[in-house]
């Protein structure tokens, strides 16, 4: 089996831990990952004003690359890329007038009208492998790990592109339970981490993020699983500063869901690149003896 894949900018650098672990996991499950040719930045956010079409050109060009390669599905990992590509795709499918304008503007490209389906990795895994089959492949069950699923906004909203409705976490829950972990619900699971507002905030002074961490810690969660590099930055990389500023009482190690998947599949921890996470993340896995087998 082979799948077309769109990585996005952040996954090649700051969030390489999200990508490396995810690609290695699919390969361990017998799925070949083919990165699309000459991809470009998706633009990170979907343009929301009615007259702004130029910002849809970036994501649509990526979809054209996938179509040219004969893909019927394009798998993405980063939640923001997923959202931007899925919304642009929907626009090209549904809005005849805007589709026509964009296609005519991009006259050096083939026409596009939403032929490729944009799928998030979690959905793909659920549909192609399924949680029961995945459970059979687990080599290091994450027994005793209390995980909170943190979807972040762009995986769930708006409803037209959400991988599931706001307030529902069945895909990541299915994955983590198949890996042997215990999923613990918490109140702030559907709250925004502050997103790009971190640009204007002083380090460690993002109240949206600290509220999420406090809620997770209060529920007894030991680890948060996410799929967005911006969520991971706001919740994970900023934790030390939040602790110093007493915005949170205790740290909650953060992970990409793909790292937990790779660990449970017994994949070389080097590929999970834990050095890109906050230091306490690796410590937690070591203390639970999940890395001993590797």
């Amino acid at each position: 089996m082979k799948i077309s894949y769109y990585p996005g900018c952040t996954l090649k650098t700051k969030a390489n831990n999200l990508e490396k672990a995810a690609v290695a996991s699919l390969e361990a499950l017998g799925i070949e990952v083919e990165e699309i040719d000459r991809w470009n930045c998706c633009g990170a956010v979907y343009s929301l004003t009615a007259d702004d079409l130029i910002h849809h050109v970036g994501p649509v060009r990526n979809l054209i690359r996938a179509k040219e390669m004969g893909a019927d599905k394009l798998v993405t990992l980063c939640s923001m890329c997923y959202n931007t590509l899925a919304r642009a795709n929907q626009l090209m499918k549904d809005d005849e007038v805007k589709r026509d304008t964009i296609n005519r503007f991009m006259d050096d490209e083939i026409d596009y009208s939403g032929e490729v389906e944009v799928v998030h990795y979690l959905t793909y895994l659920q549909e192609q492998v399924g949680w029961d089959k995945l459970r059979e492949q687990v080599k290091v069950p994450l027994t005793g790990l209390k995980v909170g699923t943190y979807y972040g906004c762009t995986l769930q909203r708006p409803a037209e592109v959400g991988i599931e409705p706001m307030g529902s976490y069945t895909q990541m829950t299915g994955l983590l339970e198949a890996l042997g972990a215990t999923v613990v619900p918490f109140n702030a699971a559907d709250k925004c981490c502050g997103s790009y507002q971190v640009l204007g905030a002083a380090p460690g002074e993002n109240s949206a993020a600290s509220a999420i961490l406090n809620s997770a810690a209060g529920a007894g969660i030991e680890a948060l699983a996410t799929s967005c590099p911006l969520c991971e930055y706001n919740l994970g990389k900023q934790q030390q500063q939040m602790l110093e500023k007493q915005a949170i009482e205790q740290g909650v190690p953060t992970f990409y869901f793909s790292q937990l998947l790779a660990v449970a599949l017994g994949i070389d921890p080097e590929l999970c690149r834990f050095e890109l996470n906050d230091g306490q993340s690796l410590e937690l896995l070591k203390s639970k003896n999940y890395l001993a087998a590797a």
Partner: protein
Amino acid sequence: MTLRINDRTLSRESIKNLNELSGENVKLCMQCATCTGMCPMAAEMDYSPRKVMHMAQFGLQSKLEEINTYWKCASCHACTVKCPRGIDIAKVMEALRQQTLRTNTNYIEPSEMSAETIAELPQIALVAGFRKMTS
């Protein structure tokens, strides 16, 4: 907040422009404040999303220009999902940002950010933030 309606405060033109730019109809808002209740950034806003919708309905253009609500909005779409009137409030916020940005005005200045911060932030934070807050 008291709103006075007179020929200086009610700008039909402003309502029309905002509706066109956002693709929404601000008059549909029934002021229930569900959006404010959902908003993770409300504490940092000088006027809540519900109040901004009220100002928008009255076309209070100069007031809308001086508030910080839409600059604090994180485009999380929680309000959009929950609005009982089906208004995509995130789009209204974007239209309000764009009205300022299109006058060649930046809300944040990239040149004032420290090299350290830029090196540390994930690319999506920079691209998203600059898309939302610079012209």
